[in-house]
């Protein structure tokens, strides 16, 4: 998925000299190719993320198309006010890229983990939130971000799990993407890294319908209502706090417009306690397939 991001970025920069990549001293090998092919369009702004977003706003006002890259623990969290005031209030087309979302940086601890970024940005006007599940969705999300001419947050989670699609999905900004059809009264809706888990769970439960949410904001309300009307229970999976994330967004829509129950499966109101591998941390937060399988079984019993 990171290769798809890097390739899309290089293509964008080569076809449009206004594209500028800014990084707060992060990215390392990810940008080797970009630096080689588009050296004039690369800016390392140093370990100073807040200034970087302000500078990006100034560049956007001057007609450039800045990408601001950082770990999602810092972009958007450390720079939230700059995003609100310098970028979104003026409706500037800055594309913010937060890498390592969720608990990807498991062994580094809470400073580098990001389980509140969606919630923080959902309340800010004039910004789209994209969260691709595989390299195909990433390519399409980059297309949408570049076409959007508005502020966009691109959330990159665990990158190397498994392909979800077999070709480029052609969803417009706001749409959910159907991954699997099913006939059960329950369906699974997931974003980012959790779409793979949803696929695994779908197989274990037989014929569950599965949807990916590559666009968290805006979200196609009528599509969500249509899904809700066909199911009694929607289980939402996300590597993010249960507060303010995709589960909340789905629940907000369904509670107003349908009778359907929504179960939010994400990170509870707590930080990671222990050090460990990504798989270990996902288990600690009960986001591994087995834990979710048990949880859904309880819901159905």
């Amino acid at each position, binding site marked *: 998925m990171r290769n798809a991001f890097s390739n899309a970025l290089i293509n964008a920069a080569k076809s449009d000299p206004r594209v500028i990549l800014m990084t707060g001293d992060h990215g390392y090998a990810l940008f080797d190719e970009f630096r080689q092919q588009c050296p004039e369009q690369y800016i390392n702004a140093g370990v100073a993320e807040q*200034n970087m*977003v*302000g*500078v990006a706003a*100034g560049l956007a006002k*001057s007609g*450039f198309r800045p990408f601001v890259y950082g770990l999602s623990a810092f972009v958007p969290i450390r720079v939230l006010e*700059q995003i609100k005031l310098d970028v979104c209030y003026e409706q500037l087309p800055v594309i913010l890229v937060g890498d390592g979302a969720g608990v990807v940086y498991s062994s580094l601890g809470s400073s580098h983990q990001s389980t509140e970024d969606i919630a923080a940005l959902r309340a800010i006007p004039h910004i789209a939130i994209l969260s691709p599940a595989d390299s195909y969705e990433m390519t399409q999300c980059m297309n949408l971000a570049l076409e959007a001419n508005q502020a966009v947050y691109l959330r990159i989670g665990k990158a190397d799990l498994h392909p979800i699609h077999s070709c480029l999905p052609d969803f417009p900004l706001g749409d959910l993407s159907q991954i699997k059809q099913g006939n059960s009264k329950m369906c699974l809706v997931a974003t980012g890294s959790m779409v793979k888990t949803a696929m695994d769970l779908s197989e274990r439960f037989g014929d569950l319908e599965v949807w990916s949410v590559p666009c968290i904001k805006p979200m196609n309300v009528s599509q969500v209502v249509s899904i809700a009307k066909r199911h009694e229970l929607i289980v939402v999976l996300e590597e993010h706090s249960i507060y303010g994330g995709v589960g909340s967004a789905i629940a907000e829509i369904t509670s107003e417009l349908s009778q359907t129950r929504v179960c939010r499966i994400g990170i509870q109101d707590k930080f990671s306690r222990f050090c460990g591998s990504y798989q270990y941390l996902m288990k600690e937060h009960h986001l591994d397939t087995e834990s979710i399988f048990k949880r859904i079984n309880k819901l159905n019993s």
Partner: protein
Amino acid sequence: MFEVGKLRKTILDMAYAGSTVHIACAFSIVEILAVLYRSHLNLGNGHPEDPLRDYLVLSKGHGVMAQYACMLELGWLTDDDIQNYFSDGTSLKGLSDAHVAGLEVSSGSLGHGLSVSVGLALGAKRNRTKQKCFAIVGDGELNEGTIWEALMFAVHFKLDNLIVIVDVNGYQAMGSTQEVMDMGNITDKFEAFGFDTLEINGHDEHLLDKTIHELVNSHSDKPKAIIANTIKGKGISFMESDNRWHYTRLTSETYHQAIAELSEKEVISLP
């Protein structure tokens, strides 16, 4: 145009009409703005939305009434805007707001404007325009860490079209800058960061004029800074360096007293 007594009168009129605060913050930068608008800002075609005019970023957004006063002189604002300041449904806010044509940034949340200025200056250089970017920051605003991030960036990327003017009036919201957060020698700090820096009296129009000219026309590839020593509430005896005027509103009595002081200096006529 941009006669400082008249600008101060406009500020008083606005503050009185809208019953607003931050009068003293605006008064300390009147000469700086007057000199910039009078002699140094390239206003392009004279329209506030001309994309090729020079930038003037008021990072210390609390002083925005001083900029409104200049915009009235330019015809970018009207007498109605001044008299209806803070009326329901009007556009001019108590802090700088980029939705107003002629203002570059939304500031007042401090430490934002300078970073955007750096982006504007970098954008101008990359676009190969001749645009300069003047950024006015307050000495209290220097408490914000983003200011120092922006200074590092500006020097590293050789933004010689950026001119930072620090309004050193010695006060911030809750007291003197020395009491609240002593910044030490500001000129030394800017020089240490790599700016071409000059320290002057920020109310001396002739000196401001000369200094800005000198810095703008230097052949150095460094960004420039003017450390302008000013007086908060300058021009009104009972406001000067009395920090209560950061938040105090004018009464009928203090408004007329202030206007009378300005007129005694034969710079304005009474209303």
